């Protein structure tokens, strides 16, 4: 029996544009389980990123509830949401979004400094370890503009996990990367998941979806498919590819 880490009920998100309401998510129910590498897939404009932001508290849903730790994060104050972002959730953006005037090391360490229960020395040590793990320790004093896209994304992953989040959100983390960097980033995420990190990732890349232990497919703002998979191993990649592609085809992918 899996433990639910995050759940949403009747989730709605709509935007008004030129006086017309666009319903991106409508009455969506979803549960995310602890330890899973959950991948959300869907066609472009299906609302997958909107779902990710609504679930992570980066954006507020216009209806429904998002429960985390017994609280509805839709109703949290800005202060509590900020606490949630630096203590419990980690986030990886498609465009990396590193702070441009901080070095790679500082980009990783600064969110750690927000956690008042951990000493600065511990944060620095963990940042060094993470940069080492991500293979970018040798360039840690460089600014993002001096690094490649892959290096930046690895730094963004290190940043996202500096506070040992309960749940790591990733919004198309390989979307802006070349093939080599994509594989490296996916390997890192898989390793993190293997070490017990819960991950919720949005992607439209079926190769990235192979790393999932669960794939959720959404269309028109609603969940239309849910596939459980065993843990990823490099050896299982071929057989998973066949299974996932077949399933995606059934979803009209």
């Amino acid at each position: 029996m899996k433990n639910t880490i995050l759940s949403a009920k009747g989730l709605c998100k709509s935007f008004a544009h030129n006086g017309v309401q666009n319903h991106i998510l409508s009455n969506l129910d979803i549960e995310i389980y602890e330890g899973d590498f959950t991948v959300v897939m869907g066609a472009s404009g299906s609302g997958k990123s909107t779902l990710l932001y609504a679930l992570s508290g980066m954006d507020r849903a216009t209806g429904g509830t998002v429960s985390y730790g017994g609280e509805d994060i839709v109703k949290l104050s800005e202060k509590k949401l900020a606490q949630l972002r630096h203590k419990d959730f980690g986030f990886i953006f498609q465009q990396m979004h590193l702070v441009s005037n901080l070095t790679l090391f500082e980009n990783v360490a600064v969110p750690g400094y927000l956690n008042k229960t951990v000493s600065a020395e511990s944060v620095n040590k963990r940042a060094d370890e993470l940069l080492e793990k991500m293979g970018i320790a040798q360039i840690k004093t460089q600014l993002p503009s001096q690094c490649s896209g892959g290096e930046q994304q690895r730094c963004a992953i290190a940043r996202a996990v500096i506070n040992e989040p309960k749940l790591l959100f990733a919004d198309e983390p390989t979307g802006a990367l070349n093939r080599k960097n994509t594989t490296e980033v996916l390997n890192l995420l898989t390793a993190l998941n293997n070490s017990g990190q819960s991950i919720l990732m949005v992607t439209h890349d079926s190769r990235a979806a192979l790393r999932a232990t669960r794939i959720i497919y959404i269309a028109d703002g609603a969940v239309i498919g849910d596939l459980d998979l065993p843990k990823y191993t490099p050896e299982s990649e071929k057989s998973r590819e066949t299974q996932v592609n077949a399933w995606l085809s059934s979803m009209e992918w």
Partner: protein
Amino acid sequence: MEIIRLLKANIRHKKGAFKSIAALMAIIVLSFTGTISNNDNIDRTIKEGQIWSDVPDMTVFMEMNGFDDETVSAINNNPDVAGLEAVNCVMSRNSFISGQETYQATYIYPESYDVYRVFNESMTGYIEDPELLKEGEIYIAYSLRGLYDNVEIGSEVRFEIPSAADPMVNDTYSLKVKGFIADPNFGAAIIGTKRYFVSEADFEKMYGAVHKSRSVVEAGISFNDGADYLQVKKALNESCNITEKSMLIISEKETGDYTKLYSDTGSGIVVAFVILLIVIAIITMYHSITTSIEMEYINLGILKAQGFTSWKIRLVYILQYVAAEIIGAVVGLILSVPVLFMLGTLFQSITGLATVHRISLLKCVILSLGVIAVCVVFVITATLKVTKISPVRAISGGKSEVHFDSRINVPVKAKPLAFFMGLRQFTSRAKSYIGIILIAGLLIYFLMSIIVLSDRLSGGKFMSGMIYPNITVITSDEFRITDMEKFEKTVCEIDGEAKVMFNSTEYMLMDDVELFCDAATPVELMYQPLEGRMPVYDNEVAITEIVADELGKKIGDTVMVGGENAKEFLITGYYQSLSELGRTFTMTAEGRYRVTGKISNCYIEVSDLNLIDKISEALDEKHSSLIGAKTLQRERDSSADGMIQMIDGICAVLVIVVFGISIAFSAVVINMVCAKAFTKERVDTGILKSLGFTSQELRLQFSFRFMIISAVGALAGGIASVLFTKPLLGLLLRIVGLTRIESSITPATFIVPSAAICASFFIFAYIAARKINTVEVRELISD
């Protein structure tokens, strides 16, 4: 047409920058309109007053015996003299207002001497037909209200004047103030001569009863057109030795100059300040335009691709800034109306004349247009960047901002995180903040200079006469120069710490130029040397640097002092004095005796007020024949305090106004710069929010960044102040006679303005960064 459309769109989208430029311009225009109009109003009031009061070209006060036939005929026979009008008056050396002894030379006239106007009850204008004074009533100058405490209608004015029957006995005349008058010739607070007006009956009584030494003639001498005051005076000195016979000779121009002394000094300071504000406004505009071009690189590229020339785009910027400046100028002109009213009221207590509150519209509009023209030149320069925008480069991704590593970057520490983040935001783009550093530095430099100036002028530090006499002895005709020592010995036997000074002032010729001489023994009780030393022997003088420049003399040179019996004196040092706008020299009382044969009066400041009577009795007992008259002051002379208070008040107003304007200016500048920085850094703000920073924390980072910038500016301003405050103030204060300002920059002089500017940068940055609240992390989503 397309320009107008673009202009409208630009103003609509950049309301903040538009309003800020308008606000800066409003402050600048308000500052110079207030100053210039106030100066013009004072000038106008003085000139009109001199006309209705019929102020003569030269006014001379003489004792009756000096105003003899020889003098009268010498004056009348001078080819430059058009007329001579003599009026008898009574001089009082011991006058009291509301119980306080006055320090001004006092002359009493009958009310029929129609040279004054009576203020109305609200002190805003004059009464057309004032009632005739009754016996026991008196009109006094309006400025005396500010110089002494509790002076109002009904207050007592008392004169103690030696009697004709026995000059050793003073007759007392007590009168009640009936009203306050405007006296365009001698009514200003700064002028040490005051005219009082009593009823015909009281004047007759007084004039008939006072000792002949107190019967004085005020001679008004009018010149033919084109005559030069100094030339006429020189000629009269040659023909009748007029300077030596007179107690005071003064020209219409001199009294006018004294009357507007403070407004002239104040306007000099404000002009320097306005220039500084214009520089700041230009830096701000330059920064705003270049940042705006950087941020709208793509849009401008698109405009170019659609056929807009660089010049058309630049024209939009120019028109936008000109429109903001015109609106600001109009607002500044409107706001100057109440400011002028306040300034007029403030300066009325100094000039003693009912001041009008008119705006010098034409002059100020022309000046405003001049400021706008200067700004346009800088806008044209700042928009040069537009010519370098290539449509292709702009459309294919624009000019993205790249942060480079900086040598001044220091590692971001956990505590205090907001400070270190702010510091990094500054150091990683330090170059783009040079303008703001310059602005903070200039403001702090000026504030420090104003504090030094205020410190130099306040508390009476600049005033001559560092002695507050408790006993004043008017020496008798029997007093000889050798008696000075005896007097001092008698006083010091009772009070070893008493200050005893022999002092007299009069106009004397130095190398044929009439100057004010302040003779004293010991001179150090009056003045301290700037260079060289003060006179010790009877053949030595010290001069001001203004006199040194005028006469072309320096320390070690000799000068001839006196008229017919001129004696040679050695210049031993320079000093400074506000008396006569610095046209003054000093020598010992013995030196004065060597030239004029006159003995000075004795002033004694006791160390213990309880010893006043004992010293007074001892002087009477041992030297009664040497004492002409004697007055005792049992408290510190409050008249000097009144003057000091007035100047302290003006200094305080000046400091408050300059601080206020500086803080208002920094508010506008910070608001404008923060708005640009915020727009530029919107993405970074979103990222930091996504990492768990609250809006409050991000606003603090913003505030710390600008506080750090202002602290760097403060350092630069402090260094500039150490280097340049002295010459700036020397330049500003030379017009009042102070040639050297000790730039006593203490830690407080630096800390107070720096703290004020840093705090205002911090607070205004925090307020301006309120838009951070509106940033949503959702903006980072690319669905």
